[in-house]
């Protein structure tokens, strides 16, 4: 399967002439990359995806796929695959007819359609459900049909708009693995929209964190987590402590803090709440000056967890803090 690079160049989209949904963003997505657009609702991630798909036309800026300017190409000529959060299966058609749709539109010969649909269904482990209607399938199965329907046309680009959002946690995790494996195997460029930071960290090669129509930071999951550039990114991804050191804000992850005895520690305080999370416990420590800090205590050692009311000392090394802009 061929894959294509995507480039958004100074793309702006305004709704109703007032609300700026996407504000002059530039993004380069490499061919074969698993790229996530991550941010809270209303940050412009879905609008950006819809501009790549062609559902929205940018007010200004250009969209390129495989080096070709497709800004003015209508949706049905863009040759992309897309998976929607609501799956958007054709309710009046069977599984086979759903998956065959894109091939039929491309006027692929009937025999080839049958072969390719069967292969696509086998790929997502749906063999045997060919003649069901979407309403007779579970959420996970519908998700797979949507995936097969998008991939059977061998698109160079696969767009996913919160495709796992409607699944329960267990199934969601399983689909995360499957989707990532499938993407690597096919080599397709995948643009993945999500508001779930864990999901983005787990699946992506690179992530663009978006906020208020702008891209705050682009980087690998590790870069985004360990070297957040802005306060928004630091705050949005995982738990964070923001320290004020001589007027500059510095971010410190709760797991970088060590629990020591109160005397001689950088900060001393009392444990206010302890949230047991299984593999670790997240403590909120109220310091003597009234500020509070989050500390992650991992359960690798043998000593018992701290409980609310315990007096603790906190320490960390300066190289674990990251300076933030804004």
């Amino acid at each position, binding site marked *: 399967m061929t894959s294509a690079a995507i480039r958004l160049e100074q793309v702006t989209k305004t709704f109703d002439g007032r609300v700026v949904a996407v504000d002059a963003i530039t993004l380069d997505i490499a061919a074969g990359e698993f790229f996530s657009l991550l941010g809270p609702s209303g940050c412009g991630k879905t609008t950006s995806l819809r501009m790549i798909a*062609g*559902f929205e036309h940018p007010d200004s800026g250009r969209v390129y796929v495989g080096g070709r300017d497709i800004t003015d190409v209508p*949706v*049905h000529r863009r040759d992309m695959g897309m998976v*929607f959060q609501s799956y*958007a299966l054709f309710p*009046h058609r069977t599984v086979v007819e759903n998956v065959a749709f894109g091939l039929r*539109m491309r006027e692929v010969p009937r025999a080839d359609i049958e072969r390719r649909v069967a292969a696509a269904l086998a790929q997502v482990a749906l063999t045997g459900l060919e003649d069901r209607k979407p309403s007779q399938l579970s959420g996970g199965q519908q998700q797979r049909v949507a995936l097969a329907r998008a991939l059977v046309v061998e698109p160079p680009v696969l767009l996913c708009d919160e495709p796992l959002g409607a699944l329960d946690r267990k199934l969601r995790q399983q689909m995360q693995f499957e989707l990532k494996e499938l993407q690597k195997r096919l080599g397709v460029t995948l643009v993945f929209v999500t508001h779930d930071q864990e999901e983005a960290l787990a699946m992506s090669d690179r992530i663009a964190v978006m906020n208020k129509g702008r891209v705050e930071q682009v980087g690998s999951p590790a870069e985004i987590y360990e070297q957040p550039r802005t306060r928004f990114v630091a705050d949005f991804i995982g738990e964070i402590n923001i320290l004020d050191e001589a007027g500059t804000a510095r971010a410190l992850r709760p797991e970088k803090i060590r629990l020591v005895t109160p005397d001689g520690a950088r900060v001393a305080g009392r444990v206010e709440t302890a949230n047991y999370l299984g593999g670790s416990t997240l403590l909120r420590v109220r310091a003597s000056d009234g500020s509070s800090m989050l500390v992650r205590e991992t359960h690798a050692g043998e000593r018992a967890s701290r409980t609310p009311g315990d007096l603790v000392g906190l320490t960390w090394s300066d190289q674990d803090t990251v300076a933030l802009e804004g």
Partner: protein
Amino acid sequence: MKAVLNKRPFDAGHAAYVTLNGLLLVFLLAPIAIVLVFALNPMPYISFPPVGVSLRWFEKFFASAEFMNALWLSLWIAGCVLVLSILIGGGCALALARGSLPGRPFLTAFFMSPLMLPAILTGLALFQAYLLAGIGRPVWGLILAHTLVAVPYVIRTTLAVLHNFDRRIEEAAAVLGASPVRVFFEVTLPLIRPGVFAGGVFAFIVSFDQFPVSLFLVVPKGETLPVVLFNYMKFDLDGAIAAASMVSILLALSVVLVLERLIGLKAYVKL
């Protein structure tokens, strides 16, 4: 071990609910039952209690050329109204729901207005309009008049389906390579069809038992069944009327059942 049996407490709300529904059903169905009793009662005038069972009124109804001509005319007109109002109403609803028309609320209210106007006014107004225009009272004039009254039903049911329509389904088709025209015929139309046809059923029935509008617009020897029945009742009040009513009810019912079988109305539209 003894199983503990929980006795269900008496639920006054549920009892009231069942009773109310039962009463409503009786209220709705009792007239039909009464008509059936009179249609089968051989007495030459409407009386109670019935003295026997006979099909003489049905025979009289089917043997009468006047009744039969009126029945066929009514069916023909209702069939035309069904087709016309589906085309017009379906188109209007699509335009109202999808087109970015200025003054949409006003247009919607305007298209629905025949529902709010007493049909007798519509009939009178059309009668005068046709007279002024020098059209006279042709059958197609009657068909158009019925269509005018029936179209809002199709608009309403189609709008209801379009309102709940997940447009992502159309988008999915477009991404897969379907041009806007193909999206319409492959996805939009099949999905709104049950709503359109549900409205079509209403349209058929509205036309088939349309009286006030028809009253002004029929010509002698070209009267629809409700008008013929009304005229007949002015002089005779025998079981033929009841038999005619039974036939009308059964015809209307069979139209609903056939459409339900063909397109499965209830799967999509809460009637």
